[in-house]
């Protein structure tokens, strides 16, 4: 089924390019740029499962990324687990957490759900900042011997990079798979009219909780990898509310509800931010420019870049979706 979609192959080619271009050029600077792009795509794609597919705005999506980082780093450094195993376990633990949490807060709708997710983010951050095994607000550091197990820091960071690219590809394929599945149809029904979906026999509570939990898995895995690479984690960078909001911005920019739009928005936004930040002319005004751009998109192109493209070239929809 999914193999017949051109976009599936597009995703694979894209991921392969992301992986091999910096490796071939042996360019770590490019790699460091691209890993942030990949993280942005992961966050935006998985956020899209909630906002784009189900219509539920999640302001606290970053909580999964941060918790994944903590669980993963704890297992990989304090418990000396294998990195891949640690990251997968982190994903699983965080997904279960999300499932339990979702059963509670997904009784709320609309803005109330959005607010609850902010509350969850703040509460979790505060809990971690007081949690001794995870180093309270000073967080955890990765000693160099943790990298030694992966053949030294240089090798370990390349490995981490490829893993992150893999997670990125999986995120997009997951988005695609859900979109073309029956489960996805149920989600769209919830987005369009939840009461009607209920009447039609969609068990909305279960659907919502499952997708909430699914949308937690890959960001948590990515968090584990990313903070391992980063060498340290503390509550303020793990649970950055701003990054959570930026995820929504990326999604809107690209076009919510679409697989490619989410990825495009994530990638472009990150590229733009890092360009503005390092450009001597704009570094003071990076927020103003990013904000202005977002405003223009919201006011004049509510469908995002992809929506704009589809209006321009209606045939593109067939190829891309």
């Amino acid at each position: 089924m999914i193999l017949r979609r051109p976009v599936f192959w597009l995703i694979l080619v894209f991921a392969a390019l992301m992986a091999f271009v910096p490796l071939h050029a042996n360019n770590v600077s490019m790699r460091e740029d691209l890993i942030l792009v990949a993280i942005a795509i992961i966050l935006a794609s998985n956020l899209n499962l909630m906002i784009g597919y189900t219509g539920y705005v999640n302001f606290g999506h970053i909580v999964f990324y941060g918790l994944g980082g903590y669980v993963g780093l704890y297992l990989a450094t304090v418990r000396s687990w294998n990195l891949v195993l640690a990251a997968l376990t982190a994903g699983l633990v965080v997904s279960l957490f999300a499932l339990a949490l979702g059963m509670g807060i997904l009784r709320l709708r609309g803005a109330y759900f959005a607010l609850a997710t902010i509350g969850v983010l703040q509460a979790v951050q505060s809990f971690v900042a007081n949690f001794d095994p995870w180093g309270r607000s000073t967080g955890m550091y990765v000693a160099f011997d943790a990298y030694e197990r992966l053949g030294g820091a240089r090798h370990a960071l390349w490995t981490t990079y490829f893993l992150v690219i893999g997670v990125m590809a999986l995120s997009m394929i997951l988005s695609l798979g859900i979109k073309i599945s029956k489960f996805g149809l149920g989600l769209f029904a919830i987005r369009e009219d939840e009461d009607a979906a209920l009447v039609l026999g969609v068990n909305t509570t279960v659907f919502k909780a499952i997708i909430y939990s699914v949308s937690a898995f890959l960001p948590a895995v990515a968090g584990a990898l990313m903070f391992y690479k980063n060498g340290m984690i503390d509550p303020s960078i793990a649970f950055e509310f701003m990054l959570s909001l930026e995820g929504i911005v990326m999604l809107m920019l690209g076009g919510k509800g679409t697989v490619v739009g989410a990825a495009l928005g994530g990638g472009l936004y990150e590229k733009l931010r890092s360009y503005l930040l390092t450009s001597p002319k704009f570094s003071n005004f990076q927020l103003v420019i990013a904000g202005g751009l977002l405003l223009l998109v919201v006011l004049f192109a509510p469908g995002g870049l992809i929506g704009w493209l589809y209006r321009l070239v209606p045939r593109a929809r067939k190829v891309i979706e």
Partner: protein
Amino acid sequence: MSGILASMIDGLLIGSVYGLAAMGLSLIWGVMDVINLTHGAVIALGMFGMYILFAAFPVNAYLLLLPVIAAGLLLGLLIYWIAVHWVIGRSQLSSLLSTFAVNMMIIGIGTAIWSTSPYNVNFTLRGITVGAYTFDGNHLAAAGAAVIIGLALELFLYRTRPGKAIRAVADNREAAELMGISSTMVLALAFAIGIALAASSGALVSTLFPFTILSGAGYQMKSFVVTVLAGLGKPLGALVAGVLLGLLEGAVTPFIAVSWIPLIEFGLFVVVLVAFPKGIFARATA
């Protein structure tokens, strides 16, 4: 005087400022169904507004609230016409994002002007000493000002024509139009007042604590908590809920480390949301 009593009084004083900040958010949310994410940035602008005014006119800082409120009204109209008017009636996500975009722009411009270093308004009123505890004069004055502004808003909403028009639009926008009320003008007015309230709370905070252009974010979070506790569109309820939140903080801090406060506060917030989606103080409406 016992420590817990002192702590509760301190909590009550700061709680009224939380309440004032939340009133602005609650008004805008309740009347226009817009979750105003410029809230925190505007609070920060209120802080810097007070800073600039006080540097130019070193009089009693609390007198300067009036120009801050006036400037807040103008700013509110500006933001309304730039970012809010066009998304009224669209999905909630649209207004969330458009106000967030303005938030980014304000923070960006603010950072370019003032960097993110802390500023102070050097104005001190004499405190009141009871036993070993001294209650800061500025805290007392700020709490008083917050309550006065809160009551003034309540009077405005319940006793004046434009105030009633705001309530009518909040209650039923289409019916208000049928009464000859221009809902656009009323929405712009309500937004301006909400922004002015946020700015005035920022101005009050600036007399209490040092601040940076990023300081508004924390008060925005508290405003969310308070607004939800109070129920939407209940400005006076928000003031009361703010005071209660402050009292709660004051009552628990003697017994636990302050670093646990956010966990309790936001945990409570989520539980209340799930249990009472319309707010604890919301009256049942038919």
